[in-house]
């Protein structure tokens, strides 16, 4: 069928993922009691949620195919700028992984330096100023004033 080719690939991927997720939820919920003597059991709602998600994602694809066939405008996903996003995301993941071993302030400073230099493409001066100044600000406001408990590294902060 011609329509399939012009389907937005990302949309299709998203719908399939949701369908798979819906199936997963349905299968898990199947193992739990559907009805108990007092009414719906723990499996009741998740089961229907899973079925709804699987069904709706299928319907989404069908409707999009119908729209394409009728020549109606369909949402085209733009992945412009995905590179910096991926870089930022990975940096964030690394920073969170470092929270326990290095403490919040150190991880935050490293994360900021990376973002300012590599993603926003600013100078080293900018990177260092922003990261250290905001880290200091956070420390004063949150740790000293508001006494929020943050992960602390081996160097005491």
């Amino acid at each position, binding site marked *: 069928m011609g329509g399939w080719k012009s389907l937005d690939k990302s949309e299709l991927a998203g719908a399939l993922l949701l369908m798979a997720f819906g199936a997963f939820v349905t299968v898990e919920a199947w193992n739990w009691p559907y009805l108990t003597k007092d009414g719906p059991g723990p499996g009741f709602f*998740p089961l229907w949620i899973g079925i709804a998600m699987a069904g709706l994602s299928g319907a989404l694809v069908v409707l999009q195919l119908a729209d394409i066939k009728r020549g109606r405008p369909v949402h085209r996903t733009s992945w412009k*700028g995905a590179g910096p996003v991926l870089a930022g*995301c990975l940096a964030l993941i690394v*920073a969170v992984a470092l929270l326990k071993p290095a403490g*919040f302030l150190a991880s935050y400073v490293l994360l900021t330096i990376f973002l300012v230099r590599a993603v926003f493409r600013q100078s080293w001066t900018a990177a260092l100023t*922003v990261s250290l100044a905001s880290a200091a600000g956070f420390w004063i406001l949150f740790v000293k004033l508001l006494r*929020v*408990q*943050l992960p602390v590294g081996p160097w005491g902060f």
Partner: protein
Amino acid sequence: MDVLTGLMQGFSIALEPMNLLWCFIGVFFGTVVGVLPGLGPSATVALLLPLTLQMNPTAGIIMMSGIYYGAKYGGSTTSILLNVPGESASVVTCLDGFAMARNGRAGPALGIAAISSFIAGTVGVVLLMLVAPPIAEFALRFGPPEYFALMALGLSMVVLLAGKSMIKALLSMFLGLWCATIGIDLFTDGTRFTFGQIELMDGVNFVVVAIGTFAIGEVLTNLGVQSSGQNFTVPKGLRNLLPNWQDLKDCRFAFLNGSLVGFFVGVLPGAGSTIASFVSYGIEKAVSRHPERFGTGAVEGVAAPEAANNSETGGALVPLLTLGIPGSGTTAILLAALILWGLKPGPLLIQDNPQMFWGLVASMYIGNVILLILNLPLVPLFAQILRLPGYVLYPGILGVSIIGVYSVDQTLLDVWLMVGFGVLGYLMRRLDYPAAPLILGLVLGDLMENAVRQSLMMSNGDIAILYSRPLAATMLLFAAAILVGPLFRQVNSWRLKAAEQEA
């Protein structure tokens, strides 16, 4: 003690210099805490509990309530400026507030939020003062079937949050509903979707999802936009930094709607300010002559939820002060404080401690005025945040988000979940799935499921209990009307399109 005498006595207490000072400190602190995403009033009140125990009860409760309703003022700031909810209830303000900021109307949005909060906050106190006991009695008539109907009404709002694709909105909502099932099942003690993690046994924390989807999602999205320069145009000149008369006129109904909905939802134990904000937003959109403006920067879309989350504080104090039942997380801490002071929260609290009650009521009037005076001039100052270059702003948002999320339970898992939801938020934006229904599903799912199952237990399986009681039936009718409306419009437009094609 009748109202007028009580109020006069209250003002004489509230205007004492020390109490005035504590009120100011409370509302100021509250505003700061509200502005910071993640840190909510309950965490702050809990933090200050040891300090307040050293104070006399009246001053203490004045200050803590100040933090409580002050936070609702501050919560809208980052919602409007950065699409980052400062406080859980401010999620709804992000919808139109941020859109207004993108249209260069950040100032008016902030101003309307402040004015709306003031009006609703004051209405909340008036209602607390006048009708607290009868409202409390009325609220007791809300049992599980009525809660179910209210949640159904809330969920029907998804139709109004849908935007272009109803299916995507529904998928988003179901995802939220699924998130709500994570944790220990209340009725059978079984675990659902916890993947063996003890930290997930109490479910996914709402703050984690909101900050992840909105804040982290927003930052990730902006990383892709290579913005090292300014973000939005910040118009100069005070006239453009505050709402104009037309705005105020447009919001007349929103003020009323938000104040009443917020107060009443606040009175119900368990229902929170997030639900109040969603419901009042939904009502506003449903009765609007131009519903399509919502989501693109409708000023009523800011006024209604902001009003709702402010009058909710007045409402939440009703069950606390008239029955000794806390209506929300923060009021639970206030309850604890009352106990620790040796006061006995219960139906006789007001009778036994009239000074404290009236002093509190009077101080809430004063507090709302202080907050209006504090917040309005701060609008131009806050709006300048938009001037900050992206490379300063976005890492900062990441930092505050991590702090905010970690401060909830000091669990690293929460931070990881936040990142996960952030990625999800980014993907949802790319694929044009609306985020608001996800939040709606998450907030309402838990309460709704519990309400249904409790109701059916009460009726031994007879479904009629859900629609036969008058209060419940009325709300369900409203929900049906809201659902049918747009569906009707949608079917009609399909018919018209089909007719066009035939011709």
